[in-house]
């Protein structure tokens, strides 16, 4: 029989440049031991899923990342999404909030409420969650450098509404290492930043047991241009750094590890993404068991949120993005995600309109209720190709771990610019491949159209900034200045010493100290991060 048929391309690779063979057979996974390397869902090494019954027990949480304008605007969008069948909330903060600047700070000009909601004080947080039962809904907050402050505001709002802190659930992103690597919204240098993070681990273990204290994020690393393997390796290496920090802070690994959670990107290459997510679970299980000697299987179980790849969306022919998102969402679900955000087709142009975000949510609902994919667990297990790719992902990740260990761990690697440099190399070579036509992007470098009608995008009123600054002024006038000064002084003393900062930050937010004021106290004590620029 003829086997040398001429193929369409000289070589076939995944979107991350991983070679793909024409055919996979049992010989590609001949060394695999089913029980040891794959096993059952909900059991070590968790390749097949974090939970024993997965989506047969409960579907993933449909959690659309949302936030714009003032707290009133976003509160309305939250309520709309809940009415439309969304099952969890996810807050997008504006950039001044992410950077720890109040809305009236000169650096905030033009940025207030533009790509997230502006939150200056606990008063804004009260409005943000108005009429939303905090004991019934879980909330994810994408906040990093000032995570402790926004989290404290959430706790304080729950208290004020009479909800016990052991009844609230959700996640703070709180992952500063990936900020240094990719998203780049930082405030303090690594040392004090990690201290705040371990303070949160400790505080939550004692007071807010249902909270995911960190969401160790590959999403932004991938968006910055990393390959699938780089996303996996750098994210899990950050995870290792946090576990080391927790242990160094005197915590038992099995006390805080169960509350660590992860966040991955789901990109365009369908099988590669499924393999990546399966590999993530196995690598983490092995790391926790072998490297950190965790005893509780829950410490070894990797749970994650997924968001479809913003960077894969195109400004040209934006409706095509609906299809891209559907494929990516499918990979995330088959990969066993615990929660999912599907991007809206227009996010490449602006924050999404209600119409676009509804289509994105409906995409998840179609997968959940119409496709049949949720009826059986990890359906690609045993596929020669997917298992081989899962193994390959794991091998390549260990190579990066070795390199990072050689550099002295992830914090040292970041300070040397190592992951940053690897990522920009990948980003550049991908861009070049697109421009040479080696990677086809439909509607961009193939099937492009000369004339395109612009689609309707969301407009954020320029009055938002004025309204927010006015409210801040009002709050500052009404609050008890003496109390504010005193809680901030106590916070400063605590920061200079070794106390857990969470109780001090909680007292500050309860007194309506602003996010910027609290950050300024900490800036004074901790200093600010300076980036090593590599490109």
């Amino acid at each position, binding site marked *: 029989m003829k086997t040398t048929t001429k193929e369409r391309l000289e070589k076939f690779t995944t979107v991350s440049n991983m070679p793909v063979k024409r055919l996979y057979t049992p010989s590609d996974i001949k060394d695999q031991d089913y029980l040891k390397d794959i096993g059952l869902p909900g059991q070590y090494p968790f390749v097949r899923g974090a939970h024993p019954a997965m989506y047969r027990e409960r579907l993933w949480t449909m959690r659309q990342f949302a936030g714009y304008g003032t707290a009133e605007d976003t509160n309305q969008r939250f309520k709309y999404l809940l009415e439309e069948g969304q099952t969890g909330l996810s807050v997008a903060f504006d*950039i*001044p909030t*992410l*950077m720890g*600047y109040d809305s009236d700070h000169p*650096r*905030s*000009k*033009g*940025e207030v409420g*533009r*790509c997230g909601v502006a939150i200056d004080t606990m008063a804004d947080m009260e409005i943000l969650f108005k009429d939303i039962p905090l004991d019934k809904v879980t909330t994810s907050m994408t906040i990093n450098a000032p995570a402790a402050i926004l989290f404290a505001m959430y706790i304080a709002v729950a208290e004020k509404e009479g909800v016990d802190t052991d009844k609230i659930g959700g996640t703070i992103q709180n992952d500063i290492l990936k*900020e240094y690597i*990719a*998203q*780049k*919204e930082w405030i303090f240098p690594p040392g004090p930043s990690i201290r705040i993070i371990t303070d949160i681990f400790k505080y939550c273990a004692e007071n807010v047991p249902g909270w995911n204290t960190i969401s160790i994020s590959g999403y932004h690393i991938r*968006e*910055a*241009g990393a390959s699938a393997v780089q996303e996996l390796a750098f994210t899990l290496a950050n995870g290792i750094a946090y576990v080391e920090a927790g242990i160094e802070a005197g915590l038992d690994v099995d006390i805080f590890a169960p509350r660590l959670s992860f966040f991955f990107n789901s990109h365009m290459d369908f099988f590669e993404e499924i393999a990546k997510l399966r590999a993530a679970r196995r690598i983490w299980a092995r790391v926790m068991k072998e490297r950190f000697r965790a005893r509780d299987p829950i410490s070894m179980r990797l749970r994650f949120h997924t968001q479809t790849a913003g*960077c894969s*969306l*195109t*400004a*040209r022919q934006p409706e095509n993005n609906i299809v891209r998102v559907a494929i990516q969402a499918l990979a995330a679900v088959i990969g066993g995600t615990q929660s999912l955000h599907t991007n809206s087709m227009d*996010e*490449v*142009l*602006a*924050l999404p309109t209600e119409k676009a975000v509804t289509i994105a949510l409906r995409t998840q609902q179609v997968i959940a209720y119409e496709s049949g994919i949720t009826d059986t667990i990890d359906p690609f297990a045993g596929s020669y190709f997917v298992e081989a790719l899962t193994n390959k992902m794991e091998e390549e990740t260990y190579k990066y771990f070795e390199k990072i260990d050689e550099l002295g761990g992830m914090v040292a690697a970041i300070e040397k610019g190592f992951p940053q440099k690897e990522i*920009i190399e990948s*980003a*550049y070579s991908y*861009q070049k491949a*697109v*421009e040479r036509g080696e990677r086809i*992007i439909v509607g*961009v*470098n193939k099937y492009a159209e000369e004339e395109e009608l*612009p689609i309707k*995008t969301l407009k*954020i009123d*320029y009055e938002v900034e004025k309204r927010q600054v006015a409210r801040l002024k009002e709050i500052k006038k009404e609050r008890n200045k003496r109390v504010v000064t005193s809680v901030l002084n106590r916070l400063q003393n605590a920061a200079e010493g070794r106390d857990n900062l969470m109780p001090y930050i909680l007292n500050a937010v309860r007194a309506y100290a602003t996010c910027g004021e609290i950050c300024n106290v900490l800036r004074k004590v901790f200093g600010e991060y300076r*980036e090593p*620029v590599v*490109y």
Partner: protein
Amino acid sequence: MTRKRKRIRVLIAKPGLDGHDRGAKIIARALRDAGMEVIYTGLHQTPEMIVIAALQEDVNAIGLSILSGAHNYIFPRVMELLKEKGMKDVLVFGGGIIPQDDILSLKKIGIKKIFTPGASTDEIIKFLEKSLKK
């Protein structure tokens, strides 16, 4: 006064507070590979910092990359400061998450071109070479 130059000098700047620097870095490198002299400002720059850098580095063009939605405040501010400093011959272009309607208004204030996601580096190189040919 006409300055004789062999190579185009470009300042790639990240104004505002957003940290998305993938695009800026790719453009910086592509322009450099195309033989231009490129200065990259790094992140979190104010309009004042950018204009001072442009003045000190004596650039022919400034590329502003922004993905935070603050372009309608920041871009006009950069243009205003350039005017104040008498740097009217510096070409300004931009890129990022910028809706069509805003592109039209930004062009009116003198931003020569805005590139949105999907634009190729080649397109940007050709645009600069063509616009700066003297």
